[in-house]
């Protein structure tokens, strides 16, 4: 029951995303192309963040002389 509601809500959000970005006007394969591009760029950004975040945080703390 809750899963059904959750699915409906997610479906509505996806519909809003399609409308706002005008993907609603495009054919399904174009939507797939755009979505995969968007997800791959977002995924790469998250992965880069994951790999480099500890180094960046250590460098900031070192600059503010909170850790040696």
């Amino acid at each position, binding site marked *: 029951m809750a899963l059904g509601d959750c699915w409906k809500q997610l479906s509505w959000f996806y519909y809003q995303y*399609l*409308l*706002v*970005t*005008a*993907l609603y*006007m*495009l*054919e399904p394969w174009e939507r797939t192309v*755009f979505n995969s591009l968007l997800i791959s760029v977002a995924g790469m950004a998250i992965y880069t963040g994951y790999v480099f975040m500890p180094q960046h945080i250590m460098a900031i703390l070192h600059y503010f002389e909170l850790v040696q």
Partner: protein
Amino acid sequence: MAIITAPGTVRVHLNGLKRDDSGRNGCHGGREKNGPRVGVGSSQHSRHETFEQPPMYVAVMTYVGYGIVTLFGYFRDFLRAVRIEKCNIAQEREDQKDFTPLYQDFENFYTRNLYMRVRDNWNRPICSLPGPVFDLMERVSDDYNWTFRFTGRTIHDVINMGSYNYLGFAENNPDFLKTVADHLQKYGAGVCSTRQEIGNLRMHEELEQLVADFLGVESSMTFGMGFATNSMNIPALVGKGCLILSDELNHTSLILGARLSGATIRVFKHNNMLSLEKMLKEAVCSGQPRTHRPWKKILIMVEGIYSMEGSVVQLPEILALKKKYKAYLYLDEAHSIGAVGATGRGVTELFNVNPADVDVMMGTFTKSFGAAGGYIAGRKELVDYLRGHSHSAVYASAMSPAITEQIIRAMKCIMGKDGSTEGIRRIRQLSENTRYFRSRLKELGFIIYGSDESPVVPLLLYMPGKVVAFAREMLARKIGVVVVGFPATPITEARARFCVSAAHTRDMLDQVLHHLDEVGDGLCLKFSRRVFSSRPEL
């Protein structure tokens, strides 16, 4: 005839297809732009017109949406160019590929890549009378709107919110149409000649006399086509050496007529009296460019109701300006004749001005009278001159007898000459419907443009995806709406345009409003940030 010191430049604005957004009137900064500030005196009743601006994210996402679709347009054009994909639209022939390209400009790009994708929302074939409800033929497309096929089913009783049927005269009741049928039987369908040759029927003269009485002017002349009335008569009135001051949002027929005439055209900001006065001052002081001779004529061209905005012209201020600077006024009442005013006489009645003050009154019979054609009315000298010198009068074939009789009976009905109160009832019903519809839409939280009197209600949708989804959703709920996007409107202001009719019952309007409420929530269209109370006096 002052000789100016600074060089005067001619700024010819092309108010053609692409209008940029910068010309909005009465800048206040902040989210709501009120109606324009008045330059010369103000009318007794303050007409409240607002053009509310949406939140910032709406404008940003509109551009983002158009950007994405344009990028995909380039991608698909590339695929078509390297022959991975078949090209379904017109292309040059193989042996003409080296000639000047025909289909590379923006308009063709836009048609190929944006309009074709979603064109099932326009040109829908109807198969009944365009009254308050009508029938549509159901059509589907198997290849993303390149071709259509009819399923054979009809969608019955779709509520019609798109026809210009303001007074409900698009009807097929045999009692009302009896005289029309009689005349059709007596005179046939066509006239087969022009007015100047053998096509001048007695009923054409009767119609012209009736139109002149209706408007309260000396004389009038009717033509078979409303667009041709504007585009063919303006060249007869002005020519080279004259100046035309035309409103930013004038209809294409006015623009075409102005360009055909060869006069200098200057565009003033929409409904902005300060801009108009500045231009008039400059025109009178500097005269024609380069020679600085005085202009032969200055003609101000405005419309009664602007059909894309729903805004009403500021007639008293324009008349005051016109008298002060000795210009002429051309008033195009295509949408306002029969639809505004206490007895349907148009904007002159709405503002309580003498119709003799307007030099050229033009209107069409397509909207409020349920027929086709246009008229030009004014002083007798003007109309007699046009009879001889207008292209439309001399060359166009005369109005069909059945249509002429339809206009005569509709006009007699409005004026009350047929002995019933049907006309005045319709006008009152239209006024009530307009007020009700507009106020309820504002309450629901949509952004509506225009004045509270105009039966044309543009509802702003902004984003291209939402425009298309709106039209499809409303059709699924059996309501027919007209959605308009670029190039008829600025690119960020796509809208749905509702035309309220006297034939709509309160029940139909409630149904439409209920569905609008649901669709507005489902598509997140309620952008208005005004807090609207239905009891403001409390």
